[in-house]
């Protein structure tokens, strides 16, 4: 019993058992079966004849009730020490030693999660218990709860003290409590700490001071970083007016800008700067002058500068150290591409983990309500608009759900036809765009081959970029038009369809251009510079079109919408289309990185201007998007798109160029080589002559150039992927099982609560409390479930353990043990019944009286069996029974369960309610309890009172 009490203090659900605990200590001498059975057995209405027959039979000996309870206290003990706490503190000392320093054997993060979990449970309970319910009834329970809270607080403080200062601060900060409570905890922790450190020398004080000043320094650094963050205020402003989904566009833009700043620094620092430092004289022929058109075309004057591949030499620069331009160029570009890839993969991976692993397509509606409110919106108009949008959305989704069920076959066929048609049309449009660009490039090639370079010729080179950008601007508009005619069952599908079509279009266009450059342009002299110029033109014209697009697309349609055709309304800011434009622009920069290393500089300028342009255009012209998707998921999709196909495409294009195409012979760093990659071979040949660098050559020959190495690497990767895939499958199965278990536990809980309610309903003077009771019975499971969920199988095991114990007590028992979780409840009850039967048989005089509860148990078991047993629930007996034996032999290590306690409460309630029903007017009307369990407990107390009166 004592061990139970101690253990119970640690139990998150302790207050449930606490009430019982008080009650139990008082009632050890009481006789719960003192009264006769009432005929109207409340919880077995169909089987009450047995109860009838036995009504009025002799009272049970008090000792028997005790012995039974003694048997119970054992599993109760099992339940009372939660397993998680055991895991964390293997050597926990009693709670009244505040200076206990059990070394933490866990990660701080796990710890803080654990603590917050507990505190969450506590605070929720406190919230749910104290504010309502009348104080008189709770008076006795409240003390216990307060005790428990204090104890939990003590434990928390002890755990906190064991942490390092940094973790401690973080852990306190992460507690979901009010400021006052946090302050209280902190002051207590500090008090204990200072008490302890008083024994040390001034060294401890010094180190404390140093760490304090370091911490303060850290705070000021973090606040300085926050003020330095680019465009923080603008983002907040946009967020407050348009919501998070629009902010995503700007976050993405900023992210790309940072990417480009990084790549500019890398390229400029490792390729351009050494060349400029070494050789300041420009290599521009005297007859070329700056005319101004170059800014648009990138040709002419720029052709001879370091802007393009052709401006770099293959010389080895002799300065302070020897600097091989060939190697620098090759390694800078390849390192940049690899770094970009890694950054993208990591970003994408973490976002996927956060947003998609837990995603469950069915829970869209709940999400819509529970988390759709964007607390960042503070603008009055935006709030009103958002409310409207949300209402429309909710109504639509409701009617859609109803509609989908009513759709006839012909309607479905028609929808399918429309989808097919629009997909064909949009793909055809994309292919047509690609083909027309292909012929346009061919035509342009012939035209430039025929004539000399002149200003007009320069201007003509703008034709292709112009057409490409025009297509990029106009065709998506057609796509959105198609989208209006299609009926998508969900809004997300609609957005995905639109995004996929746009991506296809951009891919076709870029693929055709790349094909043209690789196969046609690659035969010219100094072709890399020509490709670089073409990309430069594309980037610049794309920028112009973006500006025009936001002017015409947003400003003009705003004018039309407000002045001419109010029906159209103010345009929405289309996040998906705008982000795709950004992705396209970034792809151009990636492809161009090899041909024009300074292209990121242009890109930086472009994005910087675009940010302000879009911001102004958004605030002046647009309204928040009517249908806001899940912002975080959209962000994931955008980054995934940026990676695949766009980054992968650009990477393969650059890799193909470096591996397979022969660089031009008269300009650029790789002149005279058969391919760009062979620069590594040349380097290795040089290295061979230097002693001490044989290992590098060996690696080159045996790792980089050997097929077997790649073969093995890919084999290993495939094996690892397979293993992870299997693990994932296993986890999925586990999740399914756990979900099933939660549902079963929920059923158990509601069943038990129904029982309790029925008991009270059947009792005449409880009528007045019905309402109260109902309310609490509703809240009850929720108080329990955070812990009940984590320990849900603990309940089953505890029950099985009990069953096994009772089986061992009487060998004659033949209880089948082949059960899984839902059946366990029943089995345990049957086992108990049998045990009681046996005991009753041993004690002859009591046998008839005992038959009552025994049959009641049986009936309860039967009911539950009906409810829960389905063919799938029978499982192999081996695992279950072996578990049981282990549990039975090692009671303290068994896991706790709140359910377990509910079970016991129910048993007791049933035991006690039955005798108590007989008296007509109980002297001690039980006040409304704060929970069903308290009710049960009160009922029991009443039974005792009546029993005492009977004497």
């Amino acid at each position, binding site marked *: 019993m004592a061990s139970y009490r101690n253990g119970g203090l640690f139990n998150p659900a302790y207050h449930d058992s606490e009430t019982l605990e008080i009650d139990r200590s008082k009632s050890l001498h009481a006789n719960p079966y003192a009264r006769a059975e009432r005929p109207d057995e409340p919880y077995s209405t169909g089987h009450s004849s047995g109860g009838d027959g036995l009504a009025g039979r002799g009272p049970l000996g008090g000792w028997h009730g005790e012995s039974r309870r003694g048997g119970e206290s054992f599993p109760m003990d099992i339940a009372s020490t939660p397993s998680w706490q055991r895991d964390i503190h293997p050597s926990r000392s009693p709670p009244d030693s505040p200076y206990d320093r059990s070394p933490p054997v866990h990660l701080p993060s796990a710890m803080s*999660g654990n603590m*917050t979990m507990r505190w*969450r449970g506590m*605070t*929720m309970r406190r919230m*749910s218990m104290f*504010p309502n319910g009348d104080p008189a009834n709770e008076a006795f329970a409240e003390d216990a709860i307060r005790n428990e809270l204090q104890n939990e607080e003590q434990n928390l403080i002890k755990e906190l003290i064991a942490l390092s200062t940094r973790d401690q601060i973080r852990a*306190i*900060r*992460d507690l*979901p409590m*009010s*400021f006052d409570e*946090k*302050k209280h905890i902190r002051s207590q922790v500090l008090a204990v700490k200072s008490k302890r450190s008083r024994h040390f020398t001034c060294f401890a004080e010094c180190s404390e001071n140093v760490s304090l000043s370091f*911490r*303060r320094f850290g*705070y000021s650094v*973090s*606040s300085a970083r*926050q*003020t330095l963050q680019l465009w923080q205020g603008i983002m*907040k402003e946009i*967020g*407050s007016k348009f919501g*998070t989904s629009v902010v995503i566009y700007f976050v993405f833009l900023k992210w790309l800008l940072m990417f480009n700043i990084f790549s500019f620094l890398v390229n400029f620092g490792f390729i351009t700067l050494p060349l400029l430092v070494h050789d300041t004289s420009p290599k521009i022929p005297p007859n070329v002058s700056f005319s101004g058109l170059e800014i648009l075309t990138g040709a002419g004057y720029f052709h001879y500068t370091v802007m393009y591949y052709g401006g770099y030499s293959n010389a080895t620069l002799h300065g302070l150290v020897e600097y091989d331009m060939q190697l620098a160029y090759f390694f800078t570009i390849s390192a940049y591409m690899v770094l970009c890839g890694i950054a993208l993969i990591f970003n994408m991976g973490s976002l996927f983990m956060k*947003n998609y692993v*837990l995603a469950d397509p*069915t*829970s*869209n*509606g*709940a999400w819509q*309500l*529970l988390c*759709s409110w964007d*607390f*960042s*919106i*503070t603008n*009055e108009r935006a709030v009103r608009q958002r*409310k*409207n949008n*949300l209402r429309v959305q909710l109504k639509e989704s*409701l009617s859609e*759900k109803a509609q989908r069920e009513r759709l006839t076959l012909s309607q479905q066929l028609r929808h399918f036809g429309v989808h097919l048609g629009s997909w064909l049309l949009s793909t055809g449009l994309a292919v047509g765009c690609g083909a027309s660009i292909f012929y346009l490039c061919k035509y342009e090639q012939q035209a430039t081959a025929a004539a000399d370079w002149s200003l007009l010729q320069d201007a003509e080179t703008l034709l292709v970029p112009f057409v490409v950008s025009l297509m990029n601007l106009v065709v998506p508009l057609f796509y959105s038009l198609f989208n209006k005619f299609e009926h998508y069952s969900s809004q997300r599908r609609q957005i995905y369809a639109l995004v996929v079509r746009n991506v296809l279009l951009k891919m076709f266009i870029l693929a055709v251009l790349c094909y043209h450059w690789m196969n046609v342009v690659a035969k010219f002299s100094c072709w890399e510079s020509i490709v670089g110029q073409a990309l430069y033109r594309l980037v610049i014209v794309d920028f112009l079109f973006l500006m025009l697009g936001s002017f015409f697309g947003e400003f003009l349609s705003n004018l039309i919408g407000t002045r001419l055709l109010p029906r159209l309304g103010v345009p929405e800011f289309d996040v998906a289309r705008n982000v795709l434009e950004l992705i396209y622009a970034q792809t151009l920069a990636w492809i161009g990185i090899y041909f024009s290393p300074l292209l990121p500089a242009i890109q930086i300028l472009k994005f910087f201007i675009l940010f302000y342009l879009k911001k102004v255009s958004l605030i002046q012209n647009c309204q928040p998007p009517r249908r806001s998707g*899940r*912002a*975080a998921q959209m962000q994931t999709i955008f980054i995934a798109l940026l990676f695949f196909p766009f980054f992968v495409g650009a990477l393969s294009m650059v890799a193909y160029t470096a591996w397979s195409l022969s660089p031009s012979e008269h300009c650029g760093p790789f002149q005279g080589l058969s391919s760009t990659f062979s620069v590594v071979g040349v380097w290795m040949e040089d290295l061979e002559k230097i002693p001490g660098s044989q290992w590098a050559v060996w690696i080159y020959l045996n790792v980089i150039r050997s097929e077997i190495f790649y073969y093995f690497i890919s084999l290993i990767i495939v094996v690892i992927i397979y293993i992870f895939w299997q693990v994932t499958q296993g986890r999925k199965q586990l999740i399914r099982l756990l*979900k099933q278990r*939660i549902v079963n536990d*929920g059923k158990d809980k*509601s069943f038990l609560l129904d029982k309790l309610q029925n008991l009270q309903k059947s009792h005449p003077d409880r009528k007045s409390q019905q309402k109260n009771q109902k*309310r609490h019975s*509703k*809240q009850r*499971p*929720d108080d329990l*479930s*955070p812990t009940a969920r984590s320990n849900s199988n603990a309940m089953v095991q505890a029950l099985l353990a009990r069953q096994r114990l009772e089986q061992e007590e009487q060998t004659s028992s033949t209880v089948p043990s082949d059960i899984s979780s839902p059946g366990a409840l029943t089995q345990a009850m049957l086992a108990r019944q049998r045990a009681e039967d046996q005991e009753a048989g041993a004690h002859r005089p009591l046998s008839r009286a005992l038959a009552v509860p025994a049959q009641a148990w049986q009936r309860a078991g039967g009911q539950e069996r009906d409810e829960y047993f389905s063919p799938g629930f029978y499982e192999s007996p081996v695992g279950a029974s072996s578990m049981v034996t282990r549990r039975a032999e090692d009671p303290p290590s068994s896991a706790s369960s709140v359910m377990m306690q509910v079970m016991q409460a129910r048993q007791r309630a049933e035991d006690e309610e039955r005798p108590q029903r007989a008296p007509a007017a109980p002297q001690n009307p039980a006040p409304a309890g704060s929970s069903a369990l308290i009710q049960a407990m009160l009922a029991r107390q009443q039974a005792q009172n009546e029993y005492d009166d009977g004497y």
Partner: protein
Amino acid sequence: MGTTASQLGKDLLSEYQELTFLTKQEILLAYKRFSELLSKDEKYVLNERVPMDRILTLPELKSNPFRKRICYVLSTSDSTNGSLTFEDFLDLLTAFSDSATMEIKSHYAFCIFDFDDDGTLDCGDLEKLVNCLTGETDETKLTAEEMRQLISNILEESDIDKDGTVNLSEFQHVISRSPDFVRVHVY
């Protein structure tokens, strides 16, 4: 700025920094905003309670449909009138700041949505929530049938243990897919 810094004191400031997710500037700014809410004669800012009406005049909360709930949940006042002390106010800011953990955000969001304070979101809470989100006037309200269907949809999707209510962990399960979940920008 200088005067407010001296009023707050270095130790207090560092304590606030330790206990909230706010930086020094943010705390000072919050202090400034908070002392502006007090009337002239209430000099000693830290112990003073600002009644809910005055808190709600902050432009950041003025149009939020949950403004009253936010005050009630964060108020430590005994009479549950939604009045806030400076520390409650800091609590409010830290709960809605970008750097607060999901745990804290979901905890407070759950409390805010739990209109009857019984520790679980039941049908009544959900109905009030929907009304808050869509507007409470008669023409904007959903019909009773729509409401019933909507709530049953929500429960079907998020009530994992099928007990007819959404509890904290179920709630956290739902919002765990939405990292951009609760934010309010007071700056």
